[in-house]
């Protein structure tokens, strides 16, 4: 089974690599956007599907990475993967700074806190004009260069594809490692993990930082592809769409959210213009349908109801904290 997945993955990469030879430039650009969003969705899945932490503010780390990469490209240089490394680092730092607070909460409270984090970062992006360009954002980002040559449509596509493969592989390897198994244990039954002697908070924090780093990388790719970063790139809608992608595609599988991301991009960017740019409307309806029809509930997000008698989050939290 594992071997078959490996072959499927390898074949998919080959097909994707060949795409620019068969597609018109516009389609290639759309595919590029899909890859960027897919990486974001996969990074979110590490939190949602593996650690069981429903994060609604993940776009913040994409935004931080995007702004960092764009700023770097404009003011220092746009050579090769350097802006991407900057973006990854920025995402990691932002996640580290906010994550230590977030992982001390659970379930709905975690959702609220991450939502608040996302909104606050978005607001900061809007108001911190000297650095972020305010509501106009950072535009005129120079094209990425490999060596001395700036990349064109196909070049950007392969650049993004390469980074996507690297990022996805990192997530994949982590998910299959003992660390990933521990995350799944925390998702299934955190109290049991603690009773076994796992310092669960540390694991959740690490997952949060790693997830934020890869999201930052996705942001760097966004900046490279769009050559423009605006506050809406890290707003509530983006965060909601990312969560949508994960849920639609099936959380806990890493590749499912990638497919979900493709669906979201297709609806938003391909079908969207045909319905006056109201793609999010269609997506919202799809999302509602998915929430109702998912057999296992928002898949993999096993919450207090699973292994313990039903207790509302507030009380469950109090019980676990009675001290």
């Amino acid at each position, binding site marked *: 089974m594992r071997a078959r997945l490996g072959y499927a993955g390898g074949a998919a990469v080959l097909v994707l690599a060949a795409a620019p030879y068969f597609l018109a430039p516009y389609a290639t650009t759309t595919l590029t956007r899909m890859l960027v969003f897919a990486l974001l969705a996969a990074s979110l899945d590490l939190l949602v599907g593996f650690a069981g932490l429903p994060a609604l503010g993940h776009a913040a780390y994409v935004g931080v990475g995007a702004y960092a990469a764009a700023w770097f490209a404009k003011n220092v240089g746009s050579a090769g993967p350097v802006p991407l490394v900057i973006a990854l680092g920025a995402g990691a730092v932002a996640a580290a700074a906010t994550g230590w607070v977030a992982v001390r909460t659970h379930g709905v409270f975690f959702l609220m806190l991450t939502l608040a984090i996302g909104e606050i970062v978005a607001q900061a992006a809007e108001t911190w004009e000297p650095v972020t360009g305010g509501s106009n954002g950072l535009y005129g980002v120079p094209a990425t260069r490999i060596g001395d040559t700036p990349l064109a449509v196909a070049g950007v596509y392969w650049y993004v594809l390469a980074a996507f493969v690297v990022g996805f592989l990192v997530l994949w390897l982590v998910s299959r*490692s*003992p*660390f990933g*198994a*521990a995350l*799944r*244990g925390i*998702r*299934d*039954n955190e*109290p*049991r*993990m*603690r*009773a*076994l*002697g*796992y*310092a*669960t908070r540390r694991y959740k924090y690490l997952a949060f930082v790693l997830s934020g780093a890869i999201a930052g990388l996705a942001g760097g790719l966004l900046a490279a592809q769009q050559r423009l970063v605006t506050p809406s790139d890290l707003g509530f809608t983006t965060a909601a769409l990312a969560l949508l992608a994960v849920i639609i595609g099936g959380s806990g599988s890493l590749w499912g959210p990638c497919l979900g991301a493709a669906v979201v991009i297709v609806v938003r960017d391909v079908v969207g213009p045909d319905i006056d740019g109201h793609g999010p409307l269609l997506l919202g309806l799809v999302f509602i349908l998915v929430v109702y029809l998912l057999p296992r509930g928002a898949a*993999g997000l*096993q919450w207090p109801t*699973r*292994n*313990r*008698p039903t207790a509302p989050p507030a009380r469950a939290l109090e019980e*676990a904290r*009675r*001290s």
Partner: protein
Amino acid sequence: MTAALSCQSVSRTFGALRAVDGVDLEIRPGARHALIGPNGAGKTTLFRLITGLLRVSGGQVSLGGRDITRLSEVRRARLGIGQTLQHASLFGSMTAAENVALAVRRHVPPVPVRERAVWARVDELLTGVGLAGRGRVAAAALSHGERKQLELALALAGRPRVLLMDEPAAGMSAADRARLAGLVRALPESVTILFVEHDLDLVFDLATEVTVLSLGRVLLTGTPAEVRSSPEVRTAYLGTARDEPLFLGEADVPAS
């Protein structure tokens, strides 16, 4: 001889309620120590105070002579406290073997070479609790009795010095109960056991010492025989001292 586990004047209040009130408990190494008492006696609270899920309001908890009162549940687990709960607390999305592997891995550094050692230990533990060959079954698909067996495997993975069991026989059929009793009896002396139980037959079958709690206080600690014949224990369970038999086996007429 240092007690394997001891509580000194341990108490715990919730607002105005003194759930546990000045409890002294000494458990000698290798003991099979039962904790019994009527509902509301504070058994579960005391259980949680020992495992670390709850923090004490007063008093001291010691493990093998070491003061663990201020330590978190995670730290206590690492020092050698294992636990099984009333509702088998497992990892629902994984197979039985994966469940045990999680417990084992906590004690094995994540080096690839060790993988084989991990799975060998998993097999050893599964066989030890009577689940040999059931490793590939999803935890959610196991029967109630098997889930309790699996939980025992999880608790034993860390080679605990003290194993705390909360109502191990809860919800079990007679056959499962017998199997469980056999498993517990087979555990080595290096594992000290403290178990909370309502099933008094099981208690008198397995226990070497018994502590009776009532209204948060220790009523009596002694051998099963002493507890069985104590008038105070009767009063605590029945409300008034009577001459009627409290425990089945004493006479053929059950208490009304």
